[in-house]
């Protein structure tokens, strides 16, 4: 029994510790305030650095440096005050082509930045907003099915099938009515061939024959998936428009989207922009003022028209059923002031298809009135008798009616909105429309002062807890206690290193997990040392006592840690947000503590006491 470790074990230990120190090191450096610039589209311009340099110099900011990464330019500034000033200057001068945001960049020296990053902090530690948004899948499917009403009408008309006006309801899908069975069967075989995504069903009653069409199950699933993906893309665009540094936008589950915006304080604006479904539609006006009043009074709307409310006077307006251009075809939008009337306006650019259509329709209708419809969807849920009820509200208002004087093509303007509405609408049109309305089902906002407070308190409690344990162990187990203390400190360094290297974020419960592992990590050493003492008491020789102390304690330590690890893994898999953070640090702590408390302390013990034959007692 000589208790010697071969050289390679010491080398391994030294390597692991060196890596640990290297990866944990960036956390010792603080942050620099910075302004982040990223291009609204395409790649960042190579001249931007020089241009920003000039802007700042002429604005009186001289102390700054640049760093660029991932298609963005970071302007690093000495303090928060200069950061705010620089942000104002940069936004004014370069805000048209780039979005700018306040950010913090690690102050790690360049050589270290190549290997390691500091731990990324969760929102509860750095401040910011967290939203969980649920996509209203039913509306996504409804609007997908509704599109077929117009398509069926065109399709059947072109093929000279006689039918009565198709309609849509959420219960049965698209319904087309027919006077005789032959026409219905014709229509069915025709449509079935044309639309393979649909499931058709034929019914009849005493008077008429019906053909119902719904999306097939696979098509529904595809629709759901694409609605979610489309919404994530749109949300990402909107967040970019808002100018947020390092946002997180990701799918969570089948119909939810998680959005985290660090550092954002104005939650009201963020929420309005993210959840908004506002878009525009252009339609021709149908009939005259008298027709509108008649339709509103009798409730009988002509088959080719749709009844709307006018925002200005609340009165009825009839518009053509056919849409000229929808929000999807808007390529770019900006807000400003109409030079003629002096009222707020949205300047619109259409894409190719939209422009072509607008050109054709306006050429045919010079002298006729055209209307702009503002559409907004809202969804809210509430609990009624333990069940979740979802209220949907769709607002469609005519905001503007103007006579077409010229042929319109890809660029024109729309008035009739308030200044703020015009600004938000242009942002929304730029970023694209949400395919299905979203509802915020969870929202957490943490102010920056609270975040800093949480970090400070977390750090302090780790320090004090650690100090108490270190002192106690050294007191109670003497030299062996000091060895265990070294292992404990090494364990903390390793936890920090793993957290820095993994793509996880540290949250407040995560800090609690670290604190808990500090307490539990000594358990392995306590088990081993108690065993060694026991062996010494029962008369074993020193070297034999060390050896059997480590060996006998191992299976106990392994069993105890594996069961705790099981609990941590279950927490990780089934828990959400804060619980996950706790599970991550707890699991990491269990694994690293096994390494330092068994392997690490054994290496030191062997080095100090191993091989010494004359040893009569141990300082334990």
């Amino acid at each position, binding site marked *: 029994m000589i208790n010697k470790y071969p050289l390679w074990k010491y080398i391994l230990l030294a390597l692991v510790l060196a890596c640990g120190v290297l990866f944990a090191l960036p956390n010792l450096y603080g942050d620099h305030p910075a302004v982040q610039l990223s291009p609204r589209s395409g790649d960042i311009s190579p001249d931007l650095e020089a241009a920003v340099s000039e802007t700042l110099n002429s604005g009186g900011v001289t102390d700054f440096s640049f760093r660029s990464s991932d298609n963005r330019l970071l302007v690093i500034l000495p303090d928060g005050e200069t950061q705010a000033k620089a942000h104002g200057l940069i936004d004014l001068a370069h805000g048209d082509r780039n979005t700018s945001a306040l950010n913090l960049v690690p102050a790690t020296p360049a050589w270290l930045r190549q290997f390691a990053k500091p731990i990324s902090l969760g929102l*509860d530690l750095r401040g910011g907003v967290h939203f969980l948004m649920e996509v209203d899948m039913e509306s996504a499917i409804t609007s997908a099915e509704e599109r077929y009403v117009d398509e069926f009408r065109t399709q059947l008309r072109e093929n000279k099938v006689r039918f009565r006006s198709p309609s849509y309801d959420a219960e049965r899908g698209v319904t087309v009515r027919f006077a005789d069975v032959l026409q219905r069967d014709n229509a069915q075989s025709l449509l079935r061939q044309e639309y393979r995504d649909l499931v058709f069903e034929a019914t009849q009653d005493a008077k008429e024959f019906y053909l119902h069409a719904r999306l097939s199950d696979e098509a529904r699933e595809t629709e759901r998936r694409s609605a979610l993906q489309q919404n994530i893309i749109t949300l990402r665009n909107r967040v970019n428009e808002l100018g947020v540094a390092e946002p997180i936008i990701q799918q969570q589950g089948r119909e939810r989207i998680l959005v985290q915006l660090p550092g954002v304080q104005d939650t*009201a604006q963020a929420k309005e922009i993210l959840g908004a479904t506002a878009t525009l539609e252009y339609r021709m006006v149908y009939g005259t003022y008298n027709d509108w009043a008649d339709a509103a009074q009798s409730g009988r709307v002509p088959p080719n028209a749709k009844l709307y409310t006018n925002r200005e006077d609340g009165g009825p307006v009839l518009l053509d059923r056919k849409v000229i251009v929808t929000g999807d075809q808007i390529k770019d939008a900006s807000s400003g002031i109409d030079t003629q009337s002096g009222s707020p306006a949205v300047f619109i650019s259409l894409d190719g298809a939209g422009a072509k259509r607008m050109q054709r329709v306006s050429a045919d209708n010079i002298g006729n009135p055209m209307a702009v419809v503002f559409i907004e969807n809202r969804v809210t849920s509430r609990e009624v008798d333990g069940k979740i009820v979802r209220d949907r509200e769709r607002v469609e208002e005519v905001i503007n009616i103007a006579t077409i004087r010229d042929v319109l093509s890809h660029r024109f303007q729309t008035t009739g909105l308030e200044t703020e509405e015009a600004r938000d609408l242009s942002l929304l049109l730029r970023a694209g429309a949400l395919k299905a309305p979203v509802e915020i089902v969870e929202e957490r906002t943490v102010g920056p002062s609270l975040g800093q407070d949480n970090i400070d308190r*977390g750090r302090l409690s780790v320090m004090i807890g650690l100090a108490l344990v270190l002192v106690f162990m050294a007191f*109670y187990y003497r030299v062996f206690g000091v060895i265990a203390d070294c292992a404990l400190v090494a364990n903390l360094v390793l936890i920090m290193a793993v957290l820095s290297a993994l793509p996880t974020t540290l949250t*407040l419960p995560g800090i609690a997990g670290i604190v808990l592992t500090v307490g539990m990590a000594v358990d392995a050493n306590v088990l081993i040392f108690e065993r060694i003492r026991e062996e010494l008491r029962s008369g074993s020789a020193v070297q034999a006592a060390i050896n059997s102390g480590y060996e006998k304690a191992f*299976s106990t330590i392994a069993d105890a840690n594996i*069961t705790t690890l099981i609990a941590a893994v279950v927490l990780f898999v089934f828990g959400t947000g804060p619980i996950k953070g706790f599970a991550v640090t707890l699991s990491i702590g269990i694994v690293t503590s096994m390494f330092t408390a068994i392997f690490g302390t054994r290496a030191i013990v062997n080095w100090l006491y191993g091989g010494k034959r004359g040893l009569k007692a141990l300082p334990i």
Partner: protein
Amino acid sequence: MARLKQLVEARYDIMGYRRPAMFLSIALMVISVIALALRGLNFGIDFTGGYVVEAGFEQPADLGEIRSSLAENGFDDAVVQFFGTQSEVMVRLAPREGLSGADINTQVNGVLAGAGQGPVDLRRVEFVGPQVGEELREQGGLSVLLALGAIVIYIWLRFEKKFSVGAVAALIHDVVITLGVFAISQIEFDLSVLAALLAVIGYSLNDTIVVFDRIRENFLTLRKSNTVDTINVSINQTLSRTIITSFTTLLVLLALFFIGGEAIKSFSMALIIGVVVGTYSSIYVASSSVISLGLQREDMLPVEKEGSELDEIP
């Protein structure tokens, strides 16, 4: 220090007190179950859905005034309380019909700013929709049950059926009593407390396994003594370790409780209760139930192979 060493190394007839201990455990569990049935847990908005606003004022705030201004503005169900210091206030609201999170946010902010308490700094605003709350409740319960299930299977494989029954009895004991303390004290039960509860399961198990490991070892080496004596010797041998580990863990948890801030107070509270109860239960619940289940030396024999295999690893 020398006296502490003496204390933890002494031999006690621990199992001799197992009947009174069992009555104590049963009494505590009955009280906990009654408290849970009558008062229930004070669920936080993570589980119920609703709004929480945490606001800081520049000087100590007058809760009565804040309450009455909230009530004037239609928030008469608001729960208003101090959070940490006298100048920090937490407002809790139930989910509302027809109002989105944003609406509540601006309204409550307006009310707090106009409540005559000086400028207000909204430090934290949380909104959890009713559907999310319900899911978290289900998920939370599910994860506790799954963790228990996975642990039972592991102990069954590593030890023996009677041990796994004993370990689970101890776990249920710990969870029920910890929940009971939360029901009696009405401290808010939120997601972080649920995490703490799962950590308690892990910790208590850790303790139980250390004792069981020694019992198994002693059954194989002390061939002459009976079951109760063997278990008594095992508990005595591990007693010093049990006390010292619990002590160091408690040191850290107390630091967390007193310094860690209001946000993790209930979390560390749950862990402190859990560690104390878990230490006790690994001796008096887990080991006593193994005796009550009639564990024999013969039960232990087939496991010997598996244990020795693992011993080779270091």
